[in-house]
């Protein structure tokens, strides 16, 4: 499996193909549409990350020494970004997730998605993913 860094580089390359914001956004929207939905059973209040603008559900599971994430959101743009985060972190080792840097969102030209007010749970989303990883890590 590719490392977190390699996956992020792939994503950056992928977005580099688009010249215009509109194409980037359309790609994000497509990613949002294709994100495997979280199981209904996991779409609970406990798994909800509340942002001002949209809602995000995040579930984490440990399989062998890897962390597997599923997620969903009621807003498609948010869902698209989450799809990128899931692609980056899901199936990785807990320690790698904890130590990973997530500047790639900025690098693909979606910086506004990271600003606290627009974050819409995105910053909290990364934080929550890392917290899960940290929790799994400490179980070892």
């Amino acid at each position: 499996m590719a490392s977190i860094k390699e996956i992020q580089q792939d994503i950056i390359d992928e977005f580099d193909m688009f010249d215009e914001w509109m194409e980037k956004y359309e790609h994000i929207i497509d990613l949002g549409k294709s994100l495997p939905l979280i199981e209904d059973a996991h779409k609970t209040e406990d798994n909800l990350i509340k942002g001002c603008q949209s809602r995000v559900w995040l579930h984490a599971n440990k399989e062998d020494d890897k962390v597997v994430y599923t997620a969903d959101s009621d807003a498609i743009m948010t869902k698209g970004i989450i799809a990128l985060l899931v692609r980056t972190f899901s199936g990785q080792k807990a320690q790698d997730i904890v130590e990973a840097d997530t500047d790639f969102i900025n690098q693909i030209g979606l910086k506004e998605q990271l600003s606290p007010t627009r974050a819409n749970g995105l910053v909290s989303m990364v934080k929550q993913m890392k917290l899960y990883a940290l929790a799994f890590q400490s179980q070892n």
Partner: protein
Amino acid sequence: MLNVSKIRQQFPILHQEVNGYPLVYLDNGATTQKPKVVIDAIQRYYEMQNSNIHRGVHYLSQLATDEYEASRETVRKHLNADHLHEIIFTKGNTEAINLVANGFRALLASTDEVLVSAMEHHSNIVPWQMACESSGASLKVIPMNSKGELDMKAYESLLSNNTKVVAVNHISNALGTINPVKEIIQLAHQASAAVLVDGAQSGPHSHIDVKDLDADFYCISGHKIYGPTGIGALYGKEEWLNKLPPYQGGGEMIATVSFKETTYATLPHKFEAGTPNIAGGIALKTAIDWLNDIGLDNVMAYENELLEYATQELAKIEGMRFIGTASNKAAVISFLVGDIHPYDMGMILDKLGIAVRTGHHCAQPVMDEFCIPGTIRASFAVYNTKEEVDRLVEGVKKAQQMLS
């Protein structure tokens, strides 16, 4: 008639590009942009007048005090209050409500009730919840119908001898509804209840006459009325303001202080502890004068035109759903398109240089009432144009195309 292009020239911020498009600013419900005269007034204060007020004997202090007090007179006149000391400067509309709600903690008994409407924003809910919590009083909600109009029958039946305060907005920020505040106040007074009117949204859009309304308290926000942030005003009837205990302790609000006992200053200083936002207070006068120079009747007529045009053009979009369709409405349009999440729509409109508000507009209970996560809200000001409405309509269509 208004000369909109002349008005627009007075707003430096409007003449810029956002994401490569000329800015269309339709988030006036959140805050309005400032005309050059207001910006100049702030600069002039710091360059020529900066000094603490009500304290110094020196020239600058006297100058700043005079200007600040002249602003109080402008606010008094604008609201048609009887007395100058019935105008309390606050840091904003929210602080004004907190000042009153906090004062009522001491006046409410556990059998008392506070009524708020179902269309309040958080600023006119939470302070009352806090007042009820500490006094043991109960908070009751005046319901609204599916058009976003208050249910006046239900309101009447909620009123009783236990009702001590009714807190309602004049214009709803999330729905645009203009509430029948005069009638609300009359009914409340028959039950001997005091009424606080939250005028955050009415300031820039309508005439306010606290005497005609017979309001006990009326709050306005500086930054929503083309003035600076960090300044607002509370009108309170003298008898009520005398009854309420001070909100904050500190300088300015005292008459005498000893370690044994402190006596409080008379109105309005009793409620104005500490050094206020002097620059903001002074520039608020400039903003109100500026608005009155254009003429509120002209502003209202023009904004109504924009509202009608925007409603008519947006309605042509397939799947358009307006949230809040009260028959008496200010220039605020809250809407959803099909199943598109407001956040997604807002993101794309932003990329097209169009600033709207998305989300629950700090009025979560309103959204719960309509079972929606939020809305897209376009709120208009006197400097907006029909061309900008066209840009909004095109933008919504473009976003719809991308998102469906």
